[in-house]
C-alpha cells in the first residue's frame, strides 16, 4: 500500500479546486491536487458567458454594487440560499475579477464613446464614459438588474481556468492527473485524506492529508439531456455521501439551462440573450414577453426554462426528427458581434449543427445544467459531519444559489469560494485541530474496503450491464425528475432508481482489459451515481412545494411556511436503497432580505409567519440609519465581514467610490 502525504489534498482540478489549492499553499501549506483529467480540460472551461461582479464600469452597470448583486442573488435563489454566504460572495467577487485580471485574464474592456447594442430586440446607442475607458466591461445576464457579467468574449471560463491553472504551475503545486478519489479515509469523525485510483493503471494509493477539500463539480451526467461534460458524474459528492456522516444538501435543486442546442445538449451561452438574442417559437413569434413582460428572455434561468417547456407543451414547439424544440435567434446581433463576442457559439453551431448563427436560428431546448446542491458546508467551506473535510465550487452546497442560481454566479463562485475556503483550510491545518493523528491501521482498513469494492464488481460475474443501467437511470431522470415535476412521476422514478440500484449490485463485466478498464470504472461509478440520483429524486418527491428550479405541477406555489428549509440527505447504512432525509430551517430572523416576490415568475408564495416581523425590523433599521453609509446599514442588518479572511474584508473601489 503506497501512501502519499501532504498538508492539503484537493480533490478536483477545476477552477474551485485550483484556486483553493493556491490559497492554501500561499498560506504555507503543502498542497496536492488530484484531477480526473488535465486541469485545463476541466468543465470550468465550458463557462462561456461570464462572471458576475459588481464593478459598475459599463454604462448599463452604473449604480451597481454589492447590495444590488446580493439582492439579485437572493431573489434568483428564490430565498433558498444562505444570505451571509451571498454577502461574502458578492463582496469578494470584484476582488476575484481584479485578481484574475492581474493574472492575465483578458477581460473585455470598456471602450469610451458610442456603441450600438441590441436591447429588447431593438438597436440602442450607448455612450460609454471616458472615465471608464479601459476598465473591465460587463454584459447583461438573466435575473440581474444591472449589466454585471464580466466576460472574455464567450470563452470566459476557459480564460479564467487557464490563468488560474498557470498560477498553480507557477506556484509549483503538483497536480496528479487522471486520478479519481474513490473513498475518503475517515473514522466517522475526522477525515484524513482519500483512497485514490490511478485511471491509467488502475492502482490504488492512499493520500493522507491534514485537510481534504472536495471540488469535483456537479453531477449533470445523472441526466440524459445535459450541458455537462462527461466527467461530471458527481463522484466527489458520492464519496462524501458514502461516509454515512456527511449530508448532501438540496440535491433536488437542479438547474436547467434554457439554451442547450437540440438534441446534442451542448450549451450556448446566456450571453446570447444577454447581448440581445431572442427566443422564438414554431411561428417565429417572440413568445417570452407574453409570459414575462418585465424581464422577457432575461428572467432567471428556472423561469425561462419553465416558460419554454410550457410553450412547447402548448403546441408551439418547432420540430425536427429528434423531437420538439424552440429557436434562439441571434441573427439580429450581426456577424461582427458574433465573430468577436460569441465565437465559441459560432463554432459550436458550425460544427454541430452545420449552420451560421449570423444567418440562421439555433434550435434549442432546456437541458440539465447545474446542481445547486451538494456537500453541505458552513460559510468557511467546512463540511458538516467530518472534521478536516472541506468542499467548494459546484460540488458543495455552500449555499450561495439556493434553488436557482443566476447565470455568471457559478464561475464566480468557483474562484471566490476557492479564495475563502482555501484560506480556511490553511488556517485549519495550522490550528491544533489540524494535527495529523491518523493510524496506519485506519488507512489500511479504508484502503482494503475500497479495494474490496472493485474486487466485488470484477469477481461477481452477474448478468447486468453497467452501460444499460446507466442509460436507464439517465432517461428516468430526464423524463421524470426534470424541469416540470409531479409527485406520481417522481414516485415512479424513485421506484425505478431503487430497482436499478439493486440491479447494479449484480453487474457482470466482459473483463477484457486489466488495469484501468473503462468498463470497471463505469460499473463502479454507476453504483455511486444511482445513490445521487436517489438523493435528487427522493428529495424532490418529498419537497411538496415549488421553489426556484424545483417546480411541481402538483404543488405550484412556493411555500415558505413549510419549506423554507434545506434538505439534508445522508446514507448512513450502505444497504439502504433510499437516502435518509433531514431538514435544516433557514433563519428568517437573520435575513437581510426577508422573503418576498422575485420580480419575475409567478407571484403566489405562501408566506412564512415570521416574514412580516422580520421585514418590519429591517424597515425600521433602514429608517433609523437613513442617510448613513450603505456599508453601515448593511452591517446593522446582517454583519458578515467577520466571516471572511482578513485580506478579503476591505471595501471595493469603484469609479466614484473609494477609487
Amino acid at each position: 500500500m503506497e501512501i502519499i502525504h501532504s498538508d492539503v489534498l484537493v480533490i478536483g482540478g477545476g477552477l474551485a479546486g485550483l484556486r483553493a489549492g493556491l490559497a492554501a499553499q500561499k498560506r504555507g501549506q503543502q498542497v496536492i491536487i488530484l484531477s480526473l483529467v488535465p486541469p485545463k480540460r476541466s468543465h470550468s472551461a465550458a463557462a462561456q458567458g461570464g462572471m458576475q461582479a459588481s464593478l459598475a464600469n459599463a454604462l448599463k452597470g452604473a449604480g451597481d454594487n454589492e447590495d444590488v448583486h446580493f439582492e439579485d442573488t437572493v431573489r434568483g435563489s428564490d430565498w433558498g440560499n444562505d444570505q451571509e454566504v451571498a454577502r461574502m460572495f458578492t463582496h469578494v467577487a470584484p476582488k476575484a475579477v481584479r485578481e484574475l485580471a492581474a493574472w492575465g485574464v483578458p477581460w473585455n474592456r470598456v471602450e469610451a464613446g458610442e456603441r450600438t447594442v441590441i436591447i429588447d430586440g431593438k438597436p440602442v446607442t450607448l455612450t460609454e464614459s471616458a472615465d471608464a475607458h479601459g476598465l473591465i466591461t460587463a454584459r447583461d445576464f438573466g435575473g440581474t438588474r444591472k449589466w454585471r457579467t464580466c466576460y472574455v468574449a464567450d470563452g470566459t471560463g476557459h480564460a479564467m481556468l487557464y490563468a488560474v491553472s498557470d498560477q498553480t504551475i507557477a506556484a509549483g503545486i503538483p497536480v496528479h492527473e487522471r486520478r479519481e478519489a474513490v473513498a475518503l479515509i475517515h473514522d466517522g469523525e475526522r477525515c484524513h485524506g482519500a483512497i485514490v485510483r490511478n485511471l491509467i493503471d488502475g492502482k490504488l494509493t492512499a493520500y493522507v492529508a491534514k485537510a481534504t477539500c472536495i471540488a469535483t463539480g456537479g453531477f449533470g451526467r445523472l441526466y440524459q439531456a445535459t450541458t455537462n461534460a462527461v466527467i461530471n458524474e458527481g463522484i466527489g459528492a458520492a464519496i462524501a455521501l458514502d461516509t454515512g456522516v456527511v449530508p448532501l444538501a438540496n440535491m433536488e435543486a437542479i438547474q436547467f439551462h434554457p439554451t442547450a442546442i437540440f438534441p446534442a445538449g451542448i450549451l450556448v451561452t446566456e450571453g446570447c440573450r444577454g447581448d440581445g438574442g431572442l427566443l422564438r417559437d414554431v411561428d417565429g413569434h417572440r413568445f417570452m414577453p407574453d409570459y414575462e413582460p418585465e424581464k422577457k428572455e432575461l428572467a432567471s434561468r428556472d423561469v425561462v426554462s419553465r416558460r419554454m417547456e410550457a410553450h412547447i407543451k402548448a403546441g408551439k414547439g418547432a420540430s425536427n426528427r429528434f423531437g420538439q424544440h424552440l429557436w434562439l435567434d441571434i441573427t439580429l446581433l450581426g456577424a461582427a458581434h458574433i465573430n468577436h463576442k460569441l465565437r465559441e457559439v459560432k463554432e459550436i453551431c458550425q460544427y454541430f449543427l452545420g449552420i451560421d448563427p449570423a444567418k440562421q436560428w439555433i434550435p434549442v431546448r432546456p437541458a440539465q445544467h447545474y446542481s445547486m446542491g451538494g456537500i453541505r458546508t458552513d460559510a468557511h467551506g467546512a463540511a458538516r459531519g467530518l472534521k478536516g473535510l472541506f468542499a467548494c465550487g459546484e460540488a458543495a452546497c455552500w449555499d450561495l444559489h439556493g434553488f436557482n442560481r443566476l447565470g455568471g454566479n457559478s464561475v464566480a463562485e468557483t474562484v471566490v469560494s476557492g479564495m475563502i475556503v482555501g484560506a480556511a483550510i490553511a488556517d485549519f491545518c495550522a490550528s491544533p485541530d489540524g494535527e495529523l493523528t491518523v493510524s496506519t491501521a485506519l488507512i489500511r482498513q479504508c484502503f482494503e474496503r475500497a479495494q474490496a469494492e472493485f474486487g466485488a464488481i470484477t469477481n461477481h460475474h452477474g448478468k447486468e450491464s453497467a452501460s444499460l443501467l446507466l442509460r436507464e437511470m439517465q432517461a428516468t431522470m430526464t423524463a421524470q425528475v426534470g424541469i416540470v415535476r409531479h409527485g406520481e412521476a417522481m414516485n415512479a422514478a424513485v421506484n425505478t432508481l431503487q430497482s436499478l440500484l439493486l440491479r447494479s449490485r449484480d453487474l457482470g463485466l466482459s473483463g477484457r482489459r486489466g488495469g484501468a478498464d473503462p468498463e470497471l470504472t463505469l460499473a463502479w461509478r454507476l453504483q455511486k451515481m444511482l445513490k445521487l440520483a436517489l438523493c435528487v429524486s427522493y428529495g424532490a418527491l418529498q419537497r411538496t412545494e415549488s421553489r426556484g428550479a424545483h417546480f411541481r405541477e402538483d404543488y405550484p406555489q412556493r411555500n415558505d411556511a413549510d419549506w423554507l428549509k434545506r434538505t439534508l440527505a445522508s446514507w448512513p447504512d450502505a444497504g439502504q436503497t433510499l437516502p435518509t432525509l433531514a431538514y435544516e430551517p433557514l433563519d428568517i430572523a437573520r435575513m437581510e432580505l426577508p422573503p418576498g416576490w422575485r420580480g419575475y415568475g409567478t407571484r403566489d408564495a405562501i408566506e412564512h409567519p415570521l416574514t412580516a416581523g422580520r421585514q418590519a425590523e429591517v424597515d425600521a433599521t433602514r429608517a433609523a440609519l437613513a442617510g448613513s453609509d450603505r456599508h453601515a446599514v448593511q452591517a446593522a442588518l446582517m454583519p458578515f465581514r467577520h466571516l471572511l479572511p482578513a485580506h478579503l474584508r476591505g471595501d471595493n473601489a469603484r469609479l466614484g467610490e473609494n477609487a
Partner: protein
Amino acid sequence: MRQIAKTALAPALPENAPAPTRHAHPDMARSSLTDARPGNSRWPARLDLLQSLSGLVLALFLVAHMFFVATILISHELFYNVARFFEAGWLFGEPQPVLVSMVASGVTGLLVAHAWLAMRKFPGGFRQYRAFSAHRSRLRHGDTSLWWLQVVTGFALFFLTTIHLYDMVSQPQLIGPYESADRVWTGGMWPIYLALLFAAEVHGGIGLYRLAVKWGWFVGDDANAGRRRLRHIRHAFSAFFITLGLVTLLAYIDLGRAHAELAGERYVPPGHVAVDHGKH
C-alpha cells in the same frame, strides 16, 4: 534551475501568510536563469538568419543569372556583351575573366554554407527520416510535402550546381554564344542543365515562399489570404523561370547543334575582327 526560476516568478498573492520575498522581476528572472546555466547562445538566431540570408542571396543570384543567360534569346551579340560586361573590361581596360571565377567561387562558398545550414534541419538518422516520412504521408499537407521536395531538390542541386560551378571557376573565359552552346550540346552538358533548371527553379520558388512565410513578409492582415497569394506567386515564379529556362536551353541546344561542326570556335560579334577577343 527550474525551481529557482519558479520561486522568482511565483505569483504575488495577498494572502501569503509569511510575506514572501519579492524581487524586481525581470532582473531576477534573468539572474536566476543565468545563475544556473549560461544564457542561451546567440548562435541559433544567427545561424537561422544566415540560412535565410544565404538562401535569399542564392535565389536572387538565380533570378539574375536566368535573365542574363536568357539574353541569348534576343541576340547572340547581346549575350556576348553581357558576358563581357562581367569581365569588367570597361573598368580595367582589359577583360578579367578571373572576376567570373571569383564570383563563381563565392557562389560555391555560399552554396556550401547554405547546404550546411539547411542540413541541420534534415532528418538526422534513419529513425528521424522514418518518422518524418510517415508523418508526411499521413498528413497529406501541402507545405509539409513541399519541404520534402525542398530537401530532395536541395540534395540534387548540391551536386548538379557543383559541376556547373566547377566549369565556371576553371574556364571563366568560355562564356559566350558559341562557347556556351558548345558546352551544352557538344560538351553533352544539356541533361545536367535540364535537371539543374528544374531543381533550381522549384527549390528557389519554394525557398522564397518559405522565407516570406517564415519571417512574416508580404503576408498582410489576413495570413491565410496572404499565404494563398504567396502560393500563387510561387507557382508563377517556378512556371515562369522554368519556361524561360527551357526556351533558353533549347536556344543553346539549337545553336550548339548548328555549331557542332565548328565546336571550339569562339564567337566574335559582327564588326569585331580580332580573333583574340579583347585585344583590339
